[in-house]
């Protein structure tokens, strides 16, 4: 039909008749019934009908009525055709119907919108009504969706349940249907959530709750975890296949709550397969799974970390106990124990990095566990002492046996530094280490590289103050070598008073760095005195303002013993040499005479005489020939002595100075506490007691764990020395006295 000036305007009834015809044709086409498609003139014609009716002059401009007609078309179609078709089907078939009709509806909306396009452009723009598309979709929502969504939801959930139980379902169909729910929300997710998701989550909740109760009874912890992991994986896939992505977090939380959170205690504490058992049996895969599962749950890892800590502590404690039981006559096999602790640390650190993905909670648990048992005493030795002894043996062996390759030594050193971190009495370790270092440097062979290496690492970890004295000691040895060369040059050049035939080496130690040693006024044999004097002369040339203090107890001496059978070279300490040389001028000496002549203390002399007359090599004959030295004994040079060796080393057994070390450290601690208290009060001026104590503990914690009682006593001492005073109003608060 062409637009021609028709003298008669079209009435709505006439127009509707034409439109109905077009609609009928359209529905037949889109329903798939045999029907020739719209020819282009038919298409244009339909459009023109609407157009004409709209532009007619009032009262014949039928825009409003056409708009209503448009709505009515959809309403009728929805109610009369679409809805009944859907309602007569069930289950999956219903879903398919719904999906099909939804698509049809969309096409219809599109086509009719084209026919009624003129309305969209002018009438709707002017009147502010909803667009044709919206009308079409809203009709579908109100007359189809609203009526069927409940049943559809039931079907969908039933299908999901089927899939959960292992059967195949039509995922694409579900995706379409659920998309419909979303679309019918007309811009927000309310329909999807209220009409489907809420029910879905409730159903999911009861499904997994049932599963959890069954599995937790029947399965071991690893088996359960595998099932849980699998379930979570499947649900995630479900989302990607047909659920809306918004559902994912809610769904996963739901599943996690049921499978992991509510049963956590039961699961982790399962008798033979729970957390502790897995740790005990080294089931790293299962532990990794446990971490993965509980990682996302808030506070889910806490019980696992606790079990980890308890397990490591128990392992450590049993090592300690083993060592305690094995310690015979109070001597601990610290080499074995320390190695075992290092191995334990390596093992469980690997757990932390691998199974537990370096999570801080587990680093903390490991640290706490080690701090507990690394601070226990074994057979009277503190861990600080044992670690120092361990290092001592390590370096002594390394210096003597060059076959040890450096990298093992280095990695052991690294382990030692790690272990030291767990020991609270670090200052005690430093003191023992220093004493043993002194022995190594002065008496044995040592490797400069190894010694420096560990000191560098300790410095890096604990600060320069920790290692400054020890570094000084090592440097002294280095300087000593240079100095000795200078000393020998001095003789070559001056040739003054070189003691005849006596080779003399001096090591100068800087007092502050080395442990304190007792000096003694030993009367040396003349040959040795000459040596001392010449060195003094040389040294005074170089340095004016230093005083040399001679520590004879640290020296050693090579003597030639002219025995009847053959001369034998004796390697002895200076004290022993002094005693032996006393017999150069007389055959026999009594104990008292020796005391007078040598000016040694009783304790020292007894030790020396014992080593020379009652031990393995009897260079002196003792009268009476008992096993112990008494003040009434007398001694004679044993010219009859001989041995197959040409060189004999006679060690002087060292004095046990553990007690002294502990005393020294205690004393240093008191000074450290005083200094810390004064420092804190100087900056804070006024501070309540408890805060002062806790700040002091914190400041000192790098080196040792101060005893609270000791801190209290030091505070009182500072009060009586007028550094601090109590506040008159509040006696629990202290004030700094400037």
């Amino acid at each position, binding site marked *: 039909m062409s637009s021609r000036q028709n003298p008669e305007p079209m009435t709505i009834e006439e127009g509707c008749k034409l439109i109905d015809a077009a609609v009928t044709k359209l529905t037949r086409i889109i329903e798939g019934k045999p029907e020739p498609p719209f020819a282009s003139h038919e298409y244009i014609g339909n459009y023109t009908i609407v157009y004409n009716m709209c532009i007619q002059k009032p009262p014949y401009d039928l825009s409003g009525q056409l708009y209503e007609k448009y709505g009515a078309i959809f309403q009728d179609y929805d109610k009369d055709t679409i809805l009944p078709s859907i309602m007569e089907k069930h289950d999956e078939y219903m879903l398919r119907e719904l999906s099909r009709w939804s698509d049809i509806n969309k096409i219809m909306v599109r086509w009719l919108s084209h026919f009624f396009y003129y309305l969209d452009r002018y009438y709707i723009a002017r009147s502010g009504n909803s667009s044709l598309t919206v009308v079409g979709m809203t009709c579908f929502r109100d007359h189809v969706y609203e009526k069927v969504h409940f049943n559809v939801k039931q079907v969908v959930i039933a299908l999901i349940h089927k899939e959960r139980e292992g059967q195949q379902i039509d995922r694409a169909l579900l995706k379409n249907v659920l998309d419909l729910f979303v679309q019918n929300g007309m811009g927000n997710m309310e329909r999807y959530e209220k009409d489907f998701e809420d029910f879905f989550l409730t159903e999911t909740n009861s499904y997994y709750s049932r599963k959890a109760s069954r599995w937790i009874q029947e399965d071991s912890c690893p088996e359960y975890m595998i099932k849980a992991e699998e379930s979570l994986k499947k649900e995630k896939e479900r989302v990607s296949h047909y659920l809306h992505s918004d559902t994912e977090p809610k769904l996963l939380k739901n599943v996690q709550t049921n499978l992991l959170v509510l049963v956590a205690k039961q699961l982790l504490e399962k008798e033979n397969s729970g957390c502790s058992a897995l740790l005990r049996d080294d089931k790293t895969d299962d532990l990794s799974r446990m971490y993965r599962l509980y990682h996302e749950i808030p506070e889910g890892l806490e019980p696992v970390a606790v079990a980890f800590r308890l397990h490591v502590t128990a392992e450590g404690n049993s090592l300690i106990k083993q060592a305690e039981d094995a310690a015979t006559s109070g001597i601990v096999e610290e080499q074995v124990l320390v190695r075992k602790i290092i191995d334990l640390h390596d093992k469980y650190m690997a757990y932390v990095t691998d199974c537990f993905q370096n999570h801080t909670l587990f680093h903390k648990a490991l640290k706490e566990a080690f701090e507990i048992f690394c601070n226990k005493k074994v057979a009277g030795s503190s861990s600080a002492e044992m670690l120092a002894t361990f290092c001592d043996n390590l370096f002594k062996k390394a210096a003597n046996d060059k076959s040890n390759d450096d990298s093992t030594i280095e990695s052991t050193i690294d382990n030692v530094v790690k272990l030291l971190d767990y020991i609270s009495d670090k200052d005690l370790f430093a003191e023992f280490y220093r004493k043993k270092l002194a022995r190594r440097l002065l008496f044995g062979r040592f490797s400069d590289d190894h010694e420096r290496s560990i000191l560098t690492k300790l410095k890096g970890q604990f600060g320069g103050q920790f290692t400054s004295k020890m570094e000084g000691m090592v440097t002294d040895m280095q300087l000593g070598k240079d100095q000795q060369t200078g000393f020998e040059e001095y003789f070559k050049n001056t040739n003054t008073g070189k003691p005849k035939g006596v080779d003399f080496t001096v090591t100068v130690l800087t007092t502050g760095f080395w442990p304190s040693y007792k000096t003694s006024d030993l009367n040396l044999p003349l040959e040795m005195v000459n040596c001392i004097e010449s060195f003094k002369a040389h040294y005074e040339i170089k340095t004016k303002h230093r005083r040399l203090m001679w520590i004879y107890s640290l020296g050693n001496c090579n003597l030639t013993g002219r025995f009847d059978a053959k001369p034998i070279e004796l390697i002895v300490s200076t004290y022993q040499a002094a005693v032996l040389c006393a017999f150069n001028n007389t055959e026999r000496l009594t104990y008292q005479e020796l005391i007078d002549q040598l000016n040694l203390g009783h304790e020292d002399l007894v030790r020396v005489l014992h080593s020379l007359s009652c031990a393995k090599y009897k260079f002196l004959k003792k009268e009476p020939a008992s096993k112990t030295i008494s003040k009434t004994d007398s001694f004679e040079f044993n010219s009859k002595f001989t041995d197959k060796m040409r060189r004999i080393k006679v060690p002087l057994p060292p004095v046990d100075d553990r007690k002294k070390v502990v005393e020294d450290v205690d004393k240093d601690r008191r000074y450290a506490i005083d200094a810390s208290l004064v420092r804190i009060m100087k900056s804070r001026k006024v501070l*309540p*007691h*408890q805060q002062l104590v806790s700040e002091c503990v914190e400041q000192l914690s790098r080196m040792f764990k101060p005893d609270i*009682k000791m801190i*209290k*006593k030091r*505070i*009182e001492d500072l*009060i*009586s020395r007028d550094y601090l005073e*109590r506040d008159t109003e509040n*006696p*629990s*608060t*202290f004030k700094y006295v400037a």
Partner: protein
Amino acid sequence: MPPRSAPKPSKKRSNPDSVTSSATGPVPSASNKKKSSKEVDGTDKLFDKYANASSGVIDPEGIEKLCSSLEVPHTDIRILMLAWRMKAERQGYFTKAEWRIALEALKVDTIGKLKKALPELEKEVREPLKFADFYAYAFQYCLTEEKQKFLDIKTICQLLDMVLGSTFRAQVDYFIDYLKIQKDYKVINMDQWRGFYRFCNEISFPDMTNYNLELAWPSILDDFFEWLREKQA
């Protein structure tokens, strides 16, 4: 001294044993600034009676004489209180200036009046604020050497008995027992001395339920507390 109402020079209250003798002596209307030469004389004359002629101060002997005049034992707390009143600096000695301060404050110039004033003095000292000061003074007073900061245990025990014996009998007895038995402390300093007074005032005894080891009590009291707990167990 708290002001007393102006007394009538009464004949009724002539009982010398009366504890509540009102302050007699200087006529109330006498101005404070101008001391009648009679009073000063009286005070000085009294001083001279007990002072050592050559040194010009009352020495230990003189104090003993004073005590017998006052009819109090010379280890009595009231002499210490008198010393406190005059802020005597040196144990066992009263200077003229110190003497004057005390007697003026007490408004006495004869030995009889002084004796009658003693109960008043005691009452004054026992007021809580003043007693704390007196308590600390007692310790200070016993320090004889210059720069001395401690008192030995024996002295402390005697002092405690004298100063706190009447008010905190139980605490004093137990503490003295403890001091005699323990070996850690050979001397006591001012802070510990003061601490004990606080202890008596604040801690319920003998249950000591409100004692807290984590607070800033001096260590000696912590040790005392633990010793006592063990005994009670």
